[in-house]
């Protein structure tokens, strides 16, 4: 671990909490006390990886604090062992710009649809709910930079472990239906999405993202007004969020209030200069490699994770343990999840849980019995229905995007 000069933060209180049984004791305290004392440290497995587990963000339970302002909150990984859908109060949070409205009144909120359309609209939330056919889809929302902290060599940016992702049942309306009501005119090229958040400095580019018109009208891209059966937490985009199944979360614009149909390609900063990846398989280049064509990030890749066993776990020789986890296919369904307990020499197919649609997490499990004492390396690999498998070695790019290497764990059998 690299040495850094940060003072250890508040060790006395932490030791006190740890020795008092942490959570158990905190349950006895009043809400304000609990919130004031809630920071407990967690060590993410990379240099400078200490994060506080905090519970002081509105509508959120215990989250790993990556940044207070604007908020970056990571889902603690054990949450993914609790269900195929990520609870709203544990769903990760990622904002770019610091001015985030803290009061949103559904009675006065409007969603505007304008630009290259015949009938510009300004819809109330009730109109959106009542006048359009409801649409539901289970889909994984994953930050482009999920797992950036594992990049080697390291790169700057939000230093997430694997918890900048979540799976929810999204309910709302198809974007296509809303665009059809507005009447897209011939020659439309892209659709640009803007939310209520803005930067502090006037010169900071407002956060906007665009999709090609055909993608916007594919009948899957949607405007969500509910998440897992409830209105969205403010920090996840209340009242409306764009849902772009199979694509990285940068496109899932939060607090969506403005949709503009463009008759030319969007030239805004966030579409043309940010969130670019090398145009190579798995967005992979050699560190320092120059002169590579860059393109906007787009479809997700397959990933799979262990959820009920951690690196360094101790297992009993000869005893069977059912190992389990989650997988997703990226922009396609999960075809297979393969498990290896011998460093990838032999692979066995894990049992898959209920299919909730091709964009959802899929649970998997497999019985594991280690016959010999000593260290063992466990690996898990997803292959999606398009035939794309997670790679053996990690990708690398300067922005720390799209990590999807096969996950490995070292365990001990005794």
């Amino acid at each position: 671990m690299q040495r850094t000069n940060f003072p250890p933060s508040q060790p006395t209180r932490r030791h006190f909490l740890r020795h008092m049984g942490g959570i158990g004791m905190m349950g006895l305290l009043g809400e304000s006390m609990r919130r004031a004392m809630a920071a407990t440290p967690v060590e993410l497995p990379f240099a400078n990886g200490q994060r506080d587990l905090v519970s002081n963000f509105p509508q959120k339970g215990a989250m790993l604090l990556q940044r207070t302002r604007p908020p970056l909150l990571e889902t603690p990984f054990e949450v993914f062992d609790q269900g195929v859908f990520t609870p709203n109060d544990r769903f990760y949070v990622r904002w770019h710009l610091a001015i985030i409205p803290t009061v949103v009144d559904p009675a006065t909120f409007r969603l505007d649809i304008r630009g290259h359309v015949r009938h510009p609209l300004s819809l109330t939330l009730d109109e959106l709910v009542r006048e359009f056919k409801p649409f539901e889809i289970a889909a994984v929302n994953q930050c482009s930079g999920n797992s950036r902290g594992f990049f080697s060599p390291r790169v700057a940016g939000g230093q997430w472990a694997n918890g900048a992702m979540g799976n929810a049942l999204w309910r709302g309306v198809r974007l296509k239906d809303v665009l059809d009501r507005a009447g897209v005119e011939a020659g439309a090229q892209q659709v640009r999405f803007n939310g209520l958040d803005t930067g502090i400095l006037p010169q900071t580019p407002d956060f906007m993202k665009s999709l090609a018109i055909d993608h916007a009208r594919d009948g899957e891209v949607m405007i969500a007004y509910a998440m897992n059966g409830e209105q969205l937490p403010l920090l996840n985009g209340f009242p409306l969020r764009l849902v772009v199944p199979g694509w990285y979360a940068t496109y899932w614009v939060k607090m969506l209030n403005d949709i503009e149909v463009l008759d030319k390609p969007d030239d805004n900063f966030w579409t043309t200069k940010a969130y670019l990846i090398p145009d190579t398989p798995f967005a992979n280049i050699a560190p320092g490699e120059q002169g590579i064509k860059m393109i906007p990030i787009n479809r997700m890749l397959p990933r799979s994770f262990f959820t009920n066993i951690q690196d360094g776990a101790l297992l009993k020789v000869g005893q069977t343990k059912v190992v389990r986890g989650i997988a997703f296919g990226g922009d396609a369904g999960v075809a297979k999840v393969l498990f290896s307990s011998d460093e990838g020499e032999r692979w066995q197919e894990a049992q898959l849980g209920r299919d909730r649609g091709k964009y959802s997490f899929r649970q998997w499990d497999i019985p594991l019995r280690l016959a010999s004492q000593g260290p063992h390396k466990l690996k898990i690999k997803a292959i999606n229905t398009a035939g794309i498998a997670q790679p053996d070695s990690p990708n690398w790019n300067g922005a720390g995007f799209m990590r999807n290497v096969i996950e490995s764990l070292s365990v001990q059998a005794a």
Partner: protein
Amino acid sequence: MSTSRRNVALISAVSILLEAALTNTLAWPAAADSAAALHKAASGYSQKWSKVSVDLPVSDAPFPPGNGSDIAGGQCLICHSAGMVLRQPPLTQDEWVSEINKMRNAYGAPLPPDQIEALAKYLFSINGRQP
């Protein structure tokens, strides 16, 4: 209740029964299937809007003392809390210069060019690595 609403309710009821019948045999706790969340979403869903008014926590974490900490405090904190900087991996001084220039050129940080080096030296001193 309109016909379409009734149909939706009927379909929801059927899907709940199906859900129960299809509950898989994976070694997950029953609750881990999050079936409850799905039922909630599927059964007689009606969107009721509540006004949301929240307070976001404020970070009072300062930059560690040192030559240039005043520049960091005056510039970086305009747009984000110090934690974003303090939780970065250790970077070389050149890498810190790149980050500072990204903040100036892309996001409009009003840092005068003649302070770039001083700020990079400070960030390197608190969270640096040799090339």
